[in-house]
């Protein structure tokens, strides 16, 4: 069953909803350890649904998803996933540090071990000193950093991020992009990242998976060969612009020939 050297192995995956909408059709995708893969596509192309299927939060209609050679369901029960949503989903009744330690509590870590790990994680996302604050006392960008610290706290095999910076302003977003790359290098994790932003996808990823809408399909996969580590100057390299153009053209090509039927906005995107 297991495909060696694959964190995620998706084959023949199709998802249809009861309404008759085919959200995803015949998706095949392999993700290797340490990759940073972005899913990009127009609204309603099913990229969030695909992410949720990988995370075993939504069930596919047909096809298989293997995570580290296991079913997605097994992988979820084995705590293989760290998830970051667009909304930071922090619990107001927990302090910042207790939000970060939530998955550790569920894994049954000892108090001392949790405390040590929370300290490390808050250092990693540069929020040392905010341990006893409440989530609502932080800015949106800080909340999202707490959410990232929580997702990484238990060293999950796979980090799933659903437009994590979509609700933030451009400046915060660029800063968090840099920070995420630094964290990715340091934690040596594998990331699947859903986004609407072409520059963000190119800047962050090792591969950009371009999806087309209705039905959601993989239109193209753009390998991003920008050198690591990346920084502010990466965004100014000619190669960066070439890749942004390549992704944009792939998106345009994917969108052509299949005029989108009118559907209520956003309804098919998540469920």
């Amino acid at each position, binding site marked *: 069953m297991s495909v060696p050297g694959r964190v995620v192995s998706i084959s023949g995956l199709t998802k249809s909803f009861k309404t008759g909408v085919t959200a995803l059709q015949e998706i095949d995708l392999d993700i290797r350890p340490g990759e940073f893969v972005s899913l990009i596509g127009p609204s309603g192309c099913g990229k969030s649904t695909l992410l949720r299927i990988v995370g075993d*939060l939504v069930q596919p209609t047909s096809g298989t998803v293997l995570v580290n050679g296991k079913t997605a369901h097994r992988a979820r029960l084995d*705590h293989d996933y760290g998830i970051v*949503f667009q909304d930071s989903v922090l*619990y*107001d*009744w927990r302090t910042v540090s207790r939000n970060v330690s939530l998955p550790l509590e569920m894994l049954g870590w000892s108090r001392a071990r949790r405390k040590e790990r929370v300290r490390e994680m808050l250092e990693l996302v540069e929020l040392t000193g905010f341990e006893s*604050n409440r989530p609502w*006392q932080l*800015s949106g960008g800080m909340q999202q950093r707490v959410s990232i610290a929580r997702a990484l706290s238990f060293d999950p095999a796979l980090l799933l991020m659903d437009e994590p910076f979509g609700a933030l302003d451009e400046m915060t977003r660029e800063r968090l992009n840099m920070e995420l790359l630094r964290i990715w290098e340091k934690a040596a994790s594998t990331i699947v990242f859903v986004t609407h932003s072409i520059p963000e996808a190119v800047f962050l990823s090792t591969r950009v998976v371009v999806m087309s809408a209705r039905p959601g399909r993989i239109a193209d996969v753009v390998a991003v060969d920008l050198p690591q580590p990346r920084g502010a100057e990466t965004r100014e390299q000619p190669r960066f612009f070439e890749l942004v153009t390549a992704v944009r053209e792939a998106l345009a090509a994917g969108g052509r020939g299949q005029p989108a039927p009118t559907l209520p906005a956003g309804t098919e995107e998540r469920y």
Partner: protein
Amino acid sequence: MEPVPPGVVRAIGGRFVDWLPALAVFALGLALWQGLTTAFNVQTFLLPKPTDIATAFWNDRGTLWDYGLYTLKEAAGGFAMGCSAGILVALLLARFRGLGLALLPFAIAANAIPIIAFAPITNNWFGLLNPVSKMVIAAVLCFFPTMINTLRGLTSVHPSSIELMRSYGGGELAVFRRVRIPNALPFMFTGLKVSAVLSMIGAIVGEYFGGPTNALGVSILNDSQLFDFPRAWAGIMLASAFGIAFYAAVSVAERLTTSWHPSARTFRSE
């Protein structure tokens, strides 16, 4: 180190300045009452002067206070029974949605029944002098607001909160323990505060239909029948004071347990 939760400070001390407007209105109201009843020579059986009421209370303070405590105990017993039943049923309805669909319409319909009209019946069931007969009235009054508010808190949870728990491999129990129940606390306390006041009303009304002579409701009824209106008014005032105190006690408990809530935002805001 955790700082002192802001709720503790707010709950116990509060800011005196915040209370000034209310105190001013209270004083003005009393002064108007006193002034108008004196100026227009209003008869005592219509509306006694505040000073007469205060005197009546002072002359009989020990007895009235004991009556009040007796009634407060009935109210507190009913509160405990009604609210714990309300919370329990809310948990069951939130856990088993089918049960909720089947039972909730009846709960809402039952709430429309004038429960107070049952006071003579519970007196009959449990005995006129048995405090349980008053507790049951109070309990029935407390049940619905606690149940419906707690249920709302348990079910109004953001879907991604639940997805997050599931992504950690958490089941229904983990979702309840770590998301639904903490989320429901502020809602539950809204119900408990309403219930605190209702329980006092329930106990008094129960006593109106008969009860031991050392109960405040019975005392108010007797005093008005004996035309001792200042003392009846003193009893009413004491009953509301106990009701307010009960409400305040629940508020303190709320502040202590939900100091995390954004409504408690007082400190270190950036």
